[in-house]
């Protein structure tokens, strides 16, 4: 039987296939170029997995469009395509363009019920369901090619996704068709439900009322019939004269089906994936646990207008020039160009919290500086954060995942606006003392990075003290994460400072509590705090390489503040950090330290030059102490890497200068040369491999061979190994020293 089918297929005219082909390519093109229509297109284009899925989905659509005759469910090709559709549907939802194909296939009766059911069950919209696909499927329904069960399933599906259908004009034109389905007893409840959703005043006709009353007489008072009748009565009380019970528990049964949960999951996932261009969804009901109290649920409200039509307003309307119908409803705001065109007549949604999930409104908020807008958002966010905080409120711990998602959304909004919310800051200050350092860790630490910059004394007691306590008592990885977020905090502050300086030059306005010196002090305080916790942490974790890496990352920002951010502040790392890296075993960190010292030098030299030339009248000068500190470090570093006299020349009070007598007592042979670029523990392995390469015949390793010209070649070898920091350091600081015979301090 299967063979005859397949031969039939091949006999079919070929042009069919051609039209399909063009159809598909059109779909593809449309899908790629029209970013507003489908969520799928917001995925990053370079995502390989997504591309594969996209391809197999297209292939499946093509297959379903081309297939002409009944194929058994066991057919492996059919199986493959079905699975492809199902997996995409469950993960990301189907693009609007797919519904036509799939509905046609499912309702045309080409396949058996098992296949049709599976197809219908996988119809989960990613964004919208196009109206024409629904219209064409109703025409299939009218010719009743499919079984009663499939028809029923289709109706249930239609009720579930009703709000996702993009337009409803044409669908409403089919009202009469739907109405005629009422006679099917099995379908009647669902048809009633659908009609209930579809009915407008003009659909209420005397003959329809009669038909419904007839049905009621035949079937008894069914809640679904009564629901429809009560709606008819609401629209046209003169047509429905019977009395209907005032109270009815539930008119319609929930059209059970697999879609509701899947739609919610898909929606949530798509929202997560699309940071910037999230489409607005209809309806906002999120799956919420029933047990919780009404006001203790994290639900970000939908952006909607809540225009109260006051009775007196209605009367006034004719004379009111600034009538409200001029404003552009936020629900309709879908694209950036719409935002630009309507920016003058846009209103904020009735609940400010909804801007969190609406990037367009965030743009709008950014250019619309209004105190009440910020205040509304502030109150909502602060209350939600405090109420839902899983470690501050008893019994909240079961909702950690929800809370995490909320924190994540807020953080993303902060990144989008490039600005921290003061509600988040206060939340941190209130909740950090009670935090275990574990719950929602990454979210909380990210919050830290967006604490707004302002000169205040609060930050020490409210942030640094509780954070330090957690820092010292937690794992290495926690320490690294804290350092990472403090680095981001510093960077955000510096960026904020730069933009502040820019805007200040434009306008003379600046409030008294945000003077430059106050802000510089706040930044300096942060750097000193990091210096302090780094010092203690290195002791606790015995100079762990990983930890050092994060500390140096922080100082990579610190060393460049003067040049990159125009901030008159440079702070050297504490000696504990400096010496741990300088004398450590790790070449990556040593290299980074070299780079940092090079940047300090560049910054300090520029500052000195500016100071000397007096081109700029400097409000602040670096203290001599900073220069001295730098010079001490530099001496130690040059002695350690280049001149092999670190023990003699190191003048830092916490350095490693030692008497020759004492060094001799250690009985280390040739102690003098134990620290230079050849014998430094972090670089010795390089020297070893260099020797192997340069003197392949030598069986014994003799580091003393590296000197003179060999030293320079070895240096080139080191540079080739990627030690760029070492390169810039030696080129800027050492060469000159060796040439100008140790007059280094004078230069800086």
């Amino acid at each position, binding site marked *: 039987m299967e063979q005859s089918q397949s031969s039939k297929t091949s006999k079919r005219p070929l042009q069919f296939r051609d039209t399909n082909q063009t159809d598909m390519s059109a779909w593809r093109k449309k899908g790629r170029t029209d970013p507003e229509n489908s969520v799928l297109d917001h995925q990053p284009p370079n995502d390989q997995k997504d591309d594969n899925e996209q391809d197999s989905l297209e292939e499946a659509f093509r297959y379903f469009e081309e297939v002409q005759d009944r194929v058994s469910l066991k057919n492996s090709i059919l199986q493959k395509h079905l699975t492809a559709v199902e997996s995409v549907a469950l993960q990301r939802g189907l693009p609007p363009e797919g519904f036509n194909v799939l509905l046609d296939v499912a309702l045309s009766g080409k396949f058996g019920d098992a296949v049709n059911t599976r197809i219908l069950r996988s119809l989960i919209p990613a964004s919208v369901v196009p109206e024409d696909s629904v219209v064409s499927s109703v025409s299939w329904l009218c010719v009743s090619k499919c079984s009663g069960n499939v028809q029923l399933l289709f109706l249930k599906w239609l009720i579930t996704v009703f709000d996702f259908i993009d337009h409803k004009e044409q669908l409403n034109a089919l009202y009469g068709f739907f109405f005629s389905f009422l006679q099917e007893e099995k379908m009647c409840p669902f048809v009633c439900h659908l009609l209930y959703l579809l009915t407008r005043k003009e659909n209420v006709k005397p003959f329809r009322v009669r038909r419904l009353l007839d049905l009621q007489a035949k079937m008894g008072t069914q809640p679904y019939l009564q629901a429809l009748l009560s709606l008819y009565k609401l629209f046209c009380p003169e047509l429905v004269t019977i009395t209907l019970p005032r109270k009815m528990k539930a008119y319609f049964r929930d059209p059970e089906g697999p879609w509701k949960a899947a739609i919610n999951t898909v929606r949530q996932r798509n929202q997560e994936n699309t940071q910037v261009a999230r489409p607005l969804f209809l309806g906002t009901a999120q799956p919420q646990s029933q047990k919780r109290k009404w006001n203790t649920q994290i639900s970000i409200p939908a952006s909607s207008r809540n225009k*109260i039509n006051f009775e007196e307003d209605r009367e006034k309307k004719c004379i009111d020039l600034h009538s409200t119908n001029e404003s552009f409803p936020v629900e309709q705001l879908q694209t950036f160009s719409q935002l630009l065109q309507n920016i003058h007549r846009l209103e904020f949604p009735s609940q400010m919290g909804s801007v969190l999930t609406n990037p367009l409104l965030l743009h709008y908020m950014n250019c619309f500086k209004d105190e009440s807008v910020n205040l509304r*958002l502030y109150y909502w966010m602060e209350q939600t954060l405090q109420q839902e905080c899983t470690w501050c409120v008893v019994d909240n711990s079961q909702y950690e995942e929800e809370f995490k998602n909320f924190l994540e959304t807020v953080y993303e909004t902060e990144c989008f606006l490039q600005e921290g919310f003061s509600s988040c800051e206060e939340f941190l*200050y209130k909740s950090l003392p009670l935090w275990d350092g574990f719950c929602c860790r990454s979210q909380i630490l990210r919050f830290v990075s967006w604490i707004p910059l302002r000169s205040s004394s609060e930050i020490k007691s409210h942030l640094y003290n509780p954070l330090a306590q957690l820092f010292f008592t937690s794992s290495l990885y926690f320490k690294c994460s804290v350092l990472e977020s403090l680095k981001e905090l510093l960077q955000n502050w510096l960026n904020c400072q730069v933009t502040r300086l820019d805007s200040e030059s434009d306008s003379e306005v600046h409030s008294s509590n945000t003077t430059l010196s106050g802000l510089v002090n706040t930044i300096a305080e942060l750097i000193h705090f990091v210096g302090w916790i780094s010092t203690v942490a290195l002791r606790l974790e015995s100079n762990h390489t990983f930890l050092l890496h994060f500390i140096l990352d922080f100082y990579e920002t610190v060393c460049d503040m003067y040049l990159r951010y125009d901030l008159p502040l440079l702070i050297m790392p504490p000696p504990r950090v400096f010496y741990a890296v300088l004398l450590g075993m790790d070449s990556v960190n040593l290299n980074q330290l070299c780079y940092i010292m090079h940047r300090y030098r560049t910054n300090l030299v520029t500052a000195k030059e500016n100071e000397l030339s007096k081109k700029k009248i400097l409000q602040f000068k670096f203290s001599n102490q900073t220069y001295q500190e730098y010079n001490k470090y530099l001496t130690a570093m040059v002695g350690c890497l280049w001149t092999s006299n670190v023990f003699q020349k190191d003048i830092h009070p916490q350095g490693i200068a030692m008497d020759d007598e004492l060094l001799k007592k250690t009985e280390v042979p040739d102690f003098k040369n134990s620290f230079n670029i050849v014998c430094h523990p972090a670089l010795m392995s390089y020297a070893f491999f260099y020797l192997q390469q340069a003197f392949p015949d030598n069986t014994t390793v003799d580091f003393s061979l590296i000197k003179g010209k060999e030293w320079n070649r070895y240096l080139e070898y080191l540079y080739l190994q990627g030690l760029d920091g070492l390169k810039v350091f030696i080129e800027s600081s050492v060469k000159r020293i060796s040439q100008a015979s140790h007059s280094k301090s004078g230069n800086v």
Partner: protein
Amino acid sequence: MESAADGPAQPRPSTGRPSWGLPFGRARRRSALSPSSRLPPAPRRTQVKAGAAEVAEDTQRTAFLLRKQWTLYSVTPLYRFSEAHLRDYSRLLSAFVAAEKKKGLAVEIGGELDIKVSVTSLPDLKGSDRDQAAILVQLSSRSSASPKNSEEKVIWSGWFCCVAGDELSENLPEAFTCLPLFLVNGAESNTAIVGTWFQKTFDCCFRRLSLSPFNLSWMAAMWTGCKVDKPASATELVFSVPRLPHPLHISYAINLEDAQALWATIQKTPGEITQEEVDVFMDCLYSHFYRHFKIHLSATKLVKVSTAVASAHCDGIIKFRQSQYLTGVLMLLTELAICQIQ
């Protein structure tokens, strides 16, 4: 965000003994329960001034608030709320309640409905002219037997109020209305519907206002000091013992005269109460209890305070007993509500 930008305020004053505190003990408290001094809810001066006629009138208008259990909520400032539109609010809220009850079925705004909603003003309930008048929301049902002319039965009531809430209202832009305290009597399902409508319409947030043992001990001391005309019941404190497999409550009742006598020996300046005095008062009660029962009440948690003036439960439930002290109690509660939303 600027007005809120000054960050959380001073740490909460140390009380010298373990305090359980609100979930966020470091909450902003400027004038609140600072160790310095504060006025009791009803200073003697105003008590004398209040004329007999005025008291009687007040009593009538606010009598329905007495002897009912009210659940407390804090509410952030209402955005674009206007007292001029209370009738419209009733109409819209009625439709909203009906729609919620019918679970998404169509309702007509302004039509005849099972549940009637009224939103009215309670102008007497405020501390000063700067306060917004209290707003009362009531849900009443018509009995279905005789729909016309039958008496409506109030099934749920809730009221927003602000007594001496200058601390919050003075910094707010004009579009906001400061009514930080919300009190509810009735089914939670109705609270949910009304609360949701207010949240959606005025962009505000509701949050349960629980009373910490620290605040309860303040209430115990303050209310003991109040003079009441009628022969009043004893002052009762209920403690719960933590970390037991079965809940254990200790009830501690003190004769009103005894409690007042004790308080009279403690209070230094009439009309003024300090944190220290509250602590001494509670410590005296504790040591008396220990002498008889060998139980340290300071190691338990104060969960309920019941006096002739009012009774308060730590879950945020309050019952007013004396109409002349109504605004006084509300003043303290307003302060706590503001504390929670700032």
